[in-house]
């Protein structure tokens, strides 16, 4: 079928994009980045905007850095990394800085779809679409990232939970707002473990874990799951069990055991390959695998604050 007719606008800058979105507000404009969610929606009639704003040529939206070199201006400082919204998965994967300081994100990116998609898809598009079972929402949630957006009301910084609706609210992005960058705090002790759905390639279950430690004690833990519910969700019971505990295998295992506690199998996603019950069951194993990866990185002392002293 023909997608209903739409006007195509190519934005030359963020300001230009915002102006285009404003000017064509009546046409229910959609932003075109990597196109992986939008184009199938257009073809299948699930979306019928009358205007598209292509942001693909806005170089200011692309790149990974300390923040000084992305368009928003403010230096994000040494303890976080700013990722431009148009940055592709492949670029994220190739970033030494992210590999070192935000391994939860590069872990998740490394198992995201396939090479062709990784060369084209963008982090901003991924988080905005937040498809059920997508990997990056879990990683950004566990990383406690901040999503910066610009729109009619100026610039806003939204924490990942609100942006993704992980707290049960509606996703926070408003009409005619544009994601400009994602800021990821540096935590070396992070990891992502994924059970890939054999057909779709999305996560049947994916768990992202980030640990902050002080001298062998866990001071903060963020564990997020994708694939199980329609939206990404924090596994509070696991986190509670971890905070204050020592970084030890048995702590990790006991905490991971509690991964399914807060999710009713009947509420979980279900299909021919994995029922809700099975997905909830898998959560513990994948929480454990993600936490083990995180702990391994504490152990490796990859510049983080944790130590490996008391690890078995």
């Amino acid at each position: 079928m023909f997608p209903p007719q739409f006007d195509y606008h190519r934005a030359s800058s963020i300001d230009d994009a915002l102006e285009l979105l404003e000017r064509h507000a009546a046409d229910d404009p959609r932003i075109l980045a990597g196109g992986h969610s939008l184009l199938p929606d257009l073809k299948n009639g699930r979306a019928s905007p009358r205007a598209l704003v292509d942001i693909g040529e806005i170089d200011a939206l692309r790149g990974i850095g300390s923040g000084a070199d992305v368009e928003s201006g403010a230096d994000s400082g040494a303890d976080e990394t700013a990722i431009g919204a148009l940055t592709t998965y492949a670029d994220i994967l190739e970033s030494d800085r992210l590999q070192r300081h935000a391994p939860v994100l590069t872990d998740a990116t490394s198992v995201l779809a396939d090479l062709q998609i990784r060369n084209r898809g963008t982090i901003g598009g991924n988080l905005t679409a937040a498809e059920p079972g997508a990997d990056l929402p879990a990683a950004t949630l566990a990383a406690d990232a901040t999503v910066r957006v610009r729109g009619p009301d100026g610039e806003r910084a939204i924490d990942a939970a609100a942006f993704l609706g992980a707290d049960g609210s509606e996703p926070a992005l408003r009409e005619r707002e544009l994601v400009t960058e994602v800021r990821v705090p540096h935590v070396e002790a992070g990891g992502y473990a994924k059970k890939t759905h054999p057909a779709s390639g999305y996560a049947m279950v994916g768990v992202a874990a980030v640990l902050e430690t002080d001298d062998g004690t866990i001071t903060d833990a963020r564990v997020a799951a994708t694939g199980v519910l329609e939206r990404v969700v924090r596994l509070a019971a696991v986190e509670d069990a971890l905070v204050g505990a020592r970084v030890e295998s048995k702590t990790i295992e006991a905490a991971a055991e509690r991964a399914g506690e807060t999710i009713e199998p009947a509420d979980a996603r279900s299909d021919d390959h994995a029922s809700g019950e099975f997905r909830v069951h898998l959560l513990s194993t994948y929480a454990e695998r993600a936490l083990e990866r995180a702990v391994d990185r504490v152990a490796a002392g990859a510049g983080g604050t944790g130590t490996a002293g008391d690890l078995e």
Partner: protein
Amino acid sequence: MTDRRADEDAGETAGPTRREDEALLTGRAEYTDDLSDPNATHLAFVRSEYGHAEIGGIDTTAAAGIEGVLGVYTWDDIAVSESPGVLPTSTGSLDCEVPAHPVLARDRVRYQGQPIAAVVAEDRYRARDAVDAVSVEYDPLEAVVDSVAATAEDAPTLFDGAPDNVAATTDQGDREATEEAFADPENVVDVELENNRLISSALEPRAALAEYDAAEDRFTVTMTSQSPHGHRRKLAHTLGLSERQIRVISPSVGGGFGHKGHHHPGEAMAAWCARDLERPVKWTATRSANYLEGAHGRDHRTTAELAIDDDGTIRGLRVETHANVGGYGLDGGASMPGWYGGLLSSQYRIPAIHCETHAIFTNTAPVHSYRGAGRPEAIYVTERLVDVAARELGVDPVELRRRNVIEPDQFPYETPVGASYDSGDYERGLEEALELADYDDLRARGREREDGRLRGVGVACYTESTGGGFESGVVRVHRDGGVTVSAGTHSHGQGHGTTYAHLVADVLEIPTDDIDVMEGDSDSIPTGTGTFGSRSTITGGSAVVESAEAVLAKARRFAAARLEVEPDEVAYANGEFSVRDGDEGGSRSGDDTADTVSFADVAGMAYGWGVPEDMDPGLEETTFYEPDGTAYTFGTHVAVVAIDPETGELELERYVAVDDCGERLEPTIVEGQVHGGVAQGIGQAVSERASYDGDGTLLTNSLDSYAVPRASHLPEIETGQTVTPSPRNPLGVKGIGEAGTIAAPPTVVNAVVDALAHLGVRHVDMPLTDETIWRAIRDSR
């Protein structure tokens, strides 16, 4: 015989190549959907949203009013046309009188996706929009999708002519002898199993471009066909024409697996509309349409019992199967289950076998042959049952197989289910596979290893019937000595171009570069049967070789005339005829007479002015070849699996395939067929299942939900071989196209059950998804 292959392989470091591959790999090969005609129109279907419904009314007004829409058709239009408008069906072999599949639904739909209306527009986008604009009034009926449930007293009925939904019940083997074997057996072992329903996932969906020449009253249909002449016949049936009025061209085709040999509404409606509009009509199925419409494969529900002595001697095999044939009998689809039992003897001496098969209509897409077509279903039953029996008797499954295997001196071996095995050394294949897998060592290492996972080893043996029916093969020598070889088979991945060129080059002793191979045009090839059932090298290969031999014999007579000797005094080597040593020929007229004459010169003579006396001009031969009987491929596959007991996750650590397909003409192609077949067989074993809900809605209607294995899901496939030539064709070959889809499912399932047996797991139905395995472990505890 000189090996012509040496020429083209010289300098290759990566092994022999296929002549087809360059065009395929560089994107230059042309597929049906690549073809464009500036005048072409585009066809799309309105498909049933329901699995079972009466159609109240169809309103096409809005669709017809869309700019660029040329026609909107329903059954009423077909009914008043000169075409019968139904797909062929093998009603003669069924137990019931039921209507054939109409190209557009008459008043009732029997599966989701059944075409109800057809729209033709100037472009495919408008056609799709017009599809959405057609409104259909449905009166939904209760649906039934399971073949056993469909036979229940209160099950909904699809056809008045088959009130119990039974299309046919068929007996194979000897019921009485089998009853006797089960009368007082030392042991009876039984198993109830499901052979999961599959969907053909060829890379290229089905497509057709139909053109109608009103002046000649003749059609040209370019389409995705495994069998151009077969589709010509079926199109003639649906359109109400003679075969002579239809030309079917099948260009490059991206995978067949059976469903591109079957006749569906798409190509038939494209042709019908092309005549109605007098414009070319193009139709390309979407992936989802391809999935909805079928033909699907497998879907058997089976109970099987083995009568077996304490010492492991098998006495009898009794099988009852409900085979789901879907909403209509598509061609021979509904009668196909009736002969599936022909391979139930697998590699064993089983004195008595009886198989009763019920072909059942349900509200699902029509089911027909899918790579293996009944053989995977049969071998799966026997190979699972033998494994279960071994475990219950406390014997190693391999040992039980050894005790019952058919011995080399027993060939030809007649099974109780009508198969006549031509040749084999089954035990040698088994031992070869065990050695390659290092079976004794695997057994000695036990189940549990240091990483906490459970190991299992599975073995399955198989036989495969290959090479039925006749095939045509033409060798045409052109005036300059170039050769065109053609056959009624069709290559869509099988590499016939390479194989046939080599075969003919070996006979004619000319370079393969001088030989073209042509398939896929019903006008250019006398007639043919097509490519399916692992038949092409046996039938098409033998046909082109016989033609090449006849060409060479005639060429020799031309050469003899030129050399002025008798034909039996002519030697031939490397493209050159000469007088045989010692036959210096008293008959020769003098010094002016040539000493040698080339193959190309002979071709010139054949078409030149004034051919020698007693000879007809021309150098071309046509052979219609039918083998002396079926060739039975066989082999043994071994799988090693590791299972995480917490998650049910299955890793195929190793996969060993030892196959005997007789002479291996093209080892690379044989290897490729084994790899592809094993991949597809593993897909059935671990991830693929076409799944309907109770209303007849296909839940797995795209690649997003139907799990075809990716390369990364598959283990390295270790291959080995034994070679037992078939005495039933001149090449000594046996087919290899389906061996992997037959052997892999029981091999993998046997391995998984082996890993779980100590927990009390006796059988697990495919596909062995993580959850299925996890539940089997959990429920055993």
